[in-house]
């Protein structure tokens, strides 16, 4: 009575991955356990806390409310994909560090992806706009104040590195890589 497995091909952080998973496998679990990308965290599994937020075709979405098979063919960016090319902290992550925008770090991945996408469309935010940008993610540790500061700092860092890149996750031809359970 084993479950039927479906194949899903995803470009995750610029790398082509193929998984064979049950249809009910949530994208959050697929990323974390089938692809070993444990940076994305699961806080509620009903779409409210936002810790699981990843970018799907560039747009922030709750990976706990998506089935991996349903986003077959999509480009997914996780917090790991927001790192710098050398594997160090990317500008948004670095801003969080500089501004003490994280304490336990559990909610942070959802903020990083959300903020990365948001700053792409709002490169010059006011403080009020920055607070609105993070209004859909829960944090229990920081009280949000330093996260707001992190958004503003990230905007500065992104502007400073503009000539090289726009802060988009690295693209280029995806490298094929088999993955899965």
């Amino acid at each position: 009575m084993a479950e039927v497995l479906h194949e899903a091909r995803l470009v995750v952080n610029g790398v082509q991955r193929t998984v064979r998973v049950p249809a009910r496998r949530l994208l959050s679990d697929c990323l974390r356990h089938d692809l070993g990308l444990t940076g994305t965290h699961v806080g509620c599994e009903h779409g409210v806390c936002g810790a699981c937020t990843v970018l799907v075709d560039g747009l922030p979405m709750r990976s706990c409310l998506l089935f991996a098979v349903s986003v077959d063919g999509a480009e997914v960016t996780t917090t790991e994909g927001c790192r710098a090319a050398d594997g160090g902290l990317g500008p948004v992550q670095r801003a969080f560090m500089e501004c003490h925008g994280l304490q336990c770090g559990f909610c942070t991945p959802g903020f990083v992806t959300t903020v990365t996408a948001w700053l792409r469309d709002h490169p010059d935010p006011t403080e009020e706009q920055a607070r609105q940008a993070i209004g859909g993610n829960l944090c229990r540790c920081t009280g949000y104040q330093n996260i707001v500061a992190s958004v503003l700092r990230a905007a500065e860092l992104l502007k400073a590195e503009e000539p090289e890149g726009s802060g988009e996750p690295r693209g280029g031809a995806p490298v094929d890589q088999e993955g899965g359970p």
Partner: protein
Amino acid sequence: MTTRIFGEPIARREDPRLAGGDGRFLDDLGAGALAAAFVRSPHAHARVLDVDVGGALDVDGLVAVYTYEDLDGRVAEPLPLLIPHPSLHAPRTAYPLANGVVRHVGEPVAMVVASDRYVAEDAAGRIRVAYEPLPPVVGLEAARRAERTVHDDVPDNVAAHMVQEVGDARAAIEAAPHKLELRLEVERSASTPLEGKGVYARWDAADRSLRVYSSTQTSTSVRMALAAKLGVPVDRVEVVAPDVGGGFGVKIVHPWPEEVLVPWAAIRLGREVKWVEDRREHFVSSAHERGQRHQVRVGFDDDGRLLGLEVEFLHDNGAYTPYGIIVPIITSTQLLGPYKPGAYRVQFHSLYTNTVTVTPYRGAGRPQGVFAMERTMDAIAARLGRDRAEVREVNFIRPEEMPYDHGLLFQDGRPLVYDSGDYPASLAKLKKLVGWEEFEVVREQARAEGRRVGIGLACYVEGTGVGPYEGAHVRVETNGKVVVATGLTTQGQGHETVFAQVAAAELGVAVDDVTVVTGDTRRFKYAVGTFASRAAVMSGNAVALAARKVRAKALRIAGEALEADPGDLEVADGVVRVRGAPGTEIPLATVAVLSNPLRYAFDEQARRATQFAVGGGSDAPPVAEDDEPGLEAAGWYSPVRSTFANGVHAAVVETDPETAEVKVLRYCVVHDCGRLINPRIVEGQIHGGVAQGVGGALYERLVYDDSGQLLNASFMDFLMPYASEVPKVETDHLETPSPLNPLGIKGAGEAGVIPGAAVFAAAIGDAEGLWIDRMPISPSELWELRGRKGDG
């Protein structure tokens, strides 16, 4: 010269890992482990007649199902009562799996182990449990009336009854020129960290050793509990707290049923087993806190000076008392705040209800006590027509009266003695920060615009750094790096950074050369845990003491090597130098090599060391009788009693005249936690605490219906605030160093949340001209209050 590091707001060492998505939280570990899930009671109170697992057995991927009948040895006994107390006359704890009866929705009845969590839940869903529902006890009222009982052998539902008094409060109140009586209530809330609990267990059959990872606030205590429960020798059990996604108190209780059962199953099955608590489970089977109902009687004079204070309260402890009565004891004692109560009498009854067990949540009973005291102060001010800050000032313990002995016993069983603090100065700073004196102008301006604003303030005193001890181990390695280990744990407080700062400052090394390990019993075995705003005080001082021993030893050895008096030596940037004699130096790394008489030249460091001669010569043993090899030492800090931090908060709110929505315009904090190791980290703790205070005052309430069903067991309906609900916090601080510990520090972890309910009740009441005696308050409730006042 080493740059100043203690007191610097340096960036955190843990952030490159955590911000980059490289954290190792519980569910990031154990990729190959089997998954556990639980069948939990859907009833608040019921007999368990039968557990039929038949339906689960043909679920593909099922490995095992366990019920109470399968438990053996000590695992079949009730979970431990962690903190007994003479007043806790009827303690009760749960069995890891229900033994014939369940007493709250969510209590575990059966455990399933399967290939993954999806399958485990499938199997759990097919287990048929036959219950005979029993009448549940829900709410303090019902518990008190005791028409029904939670435990058959506790006929009045009273787990504990405690009285503490100093002087004759009743007589003092009788004789007082003014008297007031207040009824107050704080509703149930919960810690709700973003990461739930989790346990991952690995049994090594060849070694007969057990390693358990748990998202806990006390790995050392979980280790002792597991060794006892599972019958594994202590030195064969290691417990590691990995990265933990928040605790706020809920992860201090131990062992949770799952902390016992998952390792137990791992041993039985000879397989790795992991359980990751989901959000619904967390709501119905982790702990709650805050629900209390108070009755206050106070007698005071024309200046508002307290002459007598009598407090009676009911505390809802839920279905069991694994953590004893710490929370209501803290309420009883911390209620006094920065004031002299005259005569004081406090009595509480801790009552059982058929709801989730109550154990500490950040603040741990202080918010309720502060609510009672601060509402009383506001009521006194209103009665006398006096300024609310002035009434408080009149009652302050003065700095010159420190240390101040209240004549009561604190949560640690030791005398409640405030060691230091300048309450008038704290209040003065807060008044300036929020513009207390000028507020009437703000109010008038708003009124002219048709807006309603109000201001409130609240003072608190917080006992921090409770004992009995913490320890730390510091070692300088032969490559010059410093390794620090302490047994307590971390859930976001930046311990890898602050303890590195302490060590670096004491030793004279770069903070980047120091690594810190916390919460790993393989690295440090004796500890109490992280809770009660104690970690910085306890382990911070232990690290300092250990580092001082290491420094002293380093100077002794360096003195021998350099043929100099240790008193003439200093350490900076990891090098020991003769003060004022440049060139006469030896790196700490080399000193570390020299500290070990066995020096195989494995590396460059060892080879270089051979140029130095140390030791007592050929007539003395290479390791002296009172010495040991290595440049390392353990240090222990054990305080005679807690050290008391304090603070004052103020809030300015605006209420919508039509919709009764509450908007927080300003939130100001003045806090005093002594010297600060890392001001930015302390400030972060304040921000987070304030957010929970806002949540607890305006949004968060756990609602049980009459049948004991938790109606809001999800983030959709349990309203933790988003950024849109939390104000920007303006902070200022004082530093009255603690005289009780070498570093002069006090705890700051809970400060932000403690006065939240009090401050908002005051501010909203001030805006509306209403008396608010129950928190949290929603717009709907505020509107109903207006209606009762005739102000719809």
